[in-house]
């Protein structure tokens, strides 16, 4: 069921970078993910869709190694150097008033590349500056993060992950608290990054991503994987095969409306 005219069919056969096998995970006594398997390959632009509380963020935490699965395993086949696994958290998770300038935050992306007791080097600063340039924030590099808009902060966090020269990038709701105009800009940026870095994007709404997404994983305790995220009728029919909550959530309908 490959999409006609797709230039990405070769990417689907890409080398696996992140492999989750039969993962069951949760908090306390609550199972959030049940027997979930997922492979992220080189070239992928994977959207992880699903209702709130369906386990999207839990899946991300398991993939990042922040949460130990109860059973099953996660294999990291990318290189093991610091920064190879890029992470862009949802920015609501930390203190906005933290005293740091944009460039200080981006420099933290080099943390994994410098061991303990080593200071950031000139190379690190150069990598941070290049990452800021790539997201178009060079002019704000001395600005305190407190003063940034939602979209600027989101791009700062993307730059922080890029500074570590990631081989794979995982983003948690990158379009949340970003105004509609900035959304388009961010999606274009992600599309550009995807030319060299495989992306995993957790989102509750696929609409703004449109055709940039190549694979879709629907998560609601269980995971349904759609290798051709191209919005063909077949793919949509598969999305309809998702758990009922997701359909009632309205995501497939909005997708259909945006791309008839």
């Amino acid at each position: 069921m490959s999409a006609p005219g797709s230039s990405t069919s070769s990417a689907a056969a890409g080398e696996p970078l992140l492999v989750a096998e039969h993962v069951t995970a949760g908090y306390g006594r609550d199972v959030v993910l049940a027997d979930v398997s997922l492979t992220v390959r080189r070239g992928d632009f994977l959207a992880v869709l699903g209702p709130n509380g369906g386990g999207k963020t839990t899946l991300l935490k398991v993939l990042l190694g922040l949460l130990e699965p109860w059973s099953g395993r996660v294999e990291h086949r990318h290189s093991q150097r610091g920064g190879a696994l890029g992470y862009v958290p949802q920015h609501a998770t930390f203190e906005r008033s933290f005293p740091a300038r944009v460039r200080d935050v981006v420099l933290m992306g080099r943390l994994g590349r410098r061991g303990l007791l080593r200071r950031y080097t000139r190379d690190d600063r150069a990598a941070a500056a290049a990452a800021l340039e790539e997201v178009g924030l060079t002019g704000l590099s001395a600005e305190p993060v407190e003063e940034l808009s939602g979209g600027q902060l989101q791009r700062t966090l993307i730059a922080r992950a890029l500074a570590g020269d990631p081989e794979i990038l995982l983003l948690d709701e990158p379009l949340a608290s970003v105004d509609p105009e900035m959304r388009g800009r961010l999606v274009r940026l992600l599309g550009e990054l995807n030319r060299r870095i495989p992306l995993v994007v957790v989102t509750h709404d696929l609409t703004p991503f449109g055709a940039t997404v190549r694979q879709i994983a629907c998560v609601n305790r269980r995971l349904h994987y759609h290798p051709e995220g191209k919005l063909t009728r077949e793919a949509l029919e598969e999305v309809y095969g998702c758990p009922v909550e997701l359909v009632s959530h309205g995501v497939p309908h909005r997708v259909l409306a945006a791309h008839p």
Partner: protein
Amino acid sequence: MLGDLLTYEFLRNALAASVLASVLCGVVGTFVVVKRLVFISGGISHAAFGGLGICLFFGIDPRLGAAAVAVGSALVLSRVEESRSGSRDATIGLLWAVGMAVGVVFLARAPGYAPNLMSYLFGNVLAVSPADVGLTFALATSVLLLLAAFSKELVAVAFDEPFAQVQGVRVGAFRTLLLVMVALSVVFLIQLVGIILVIALLTIPPLAALRLARSFPGVILTSMAVGLVMTVGGLALSYAWDVPSGATMVLLGAVLLLATVAWKRWRGRR
């Protein structure tokens, strides 16, 4: 006061302790405020009172007991944080109340010379001994060295723990290090302002500094400066007016904080 300063050793000790305390508070307090460890610090300082009481009862140096209990509480709280069991608040509250109760009971039964409860609750910088000054100096130096060695990890852990962990930083170890630094600082600051007011010394200077400086090192340095004005100025005022030193320091700090808030507002409006 300058003439008295040259004459009386206790005044020189008090001054030295105030300066060292400002340095300590500038560094540790900045982390306490940005990482929201204020309640934890309160729990640790009140738990330390339990250790202090037990040591006085058995005739041991009370600082030993206070330090042991404070560091022990820090380690327990770090573990609780890691398990994410949601019982952190309750554990802190428990340490807070039980530590205080143990301290009061043992202090009441302490043999011989009955130490003044008020001096532990509110501190007395004028009673600081040269040994206290030496210990505070050693602690302040260690804290500064640790900060210099691990600054990038400590700042990253304070800012965004999950990201630091994905980058391969041992977040749990650094969180424990931070809490142990807080615990030891609390024990030494109790000498100056007492158990109840120690929180003021850890929070007021960074809160003011956050309104005046924009970078992390800037906030730390500004905190030290605000702490200096607060402790040394408080000492001078308490000496001049003959009022308790700890409370005077805290009130002066509160006035300084209000002034920075007002200044920031006034500047924002223009």
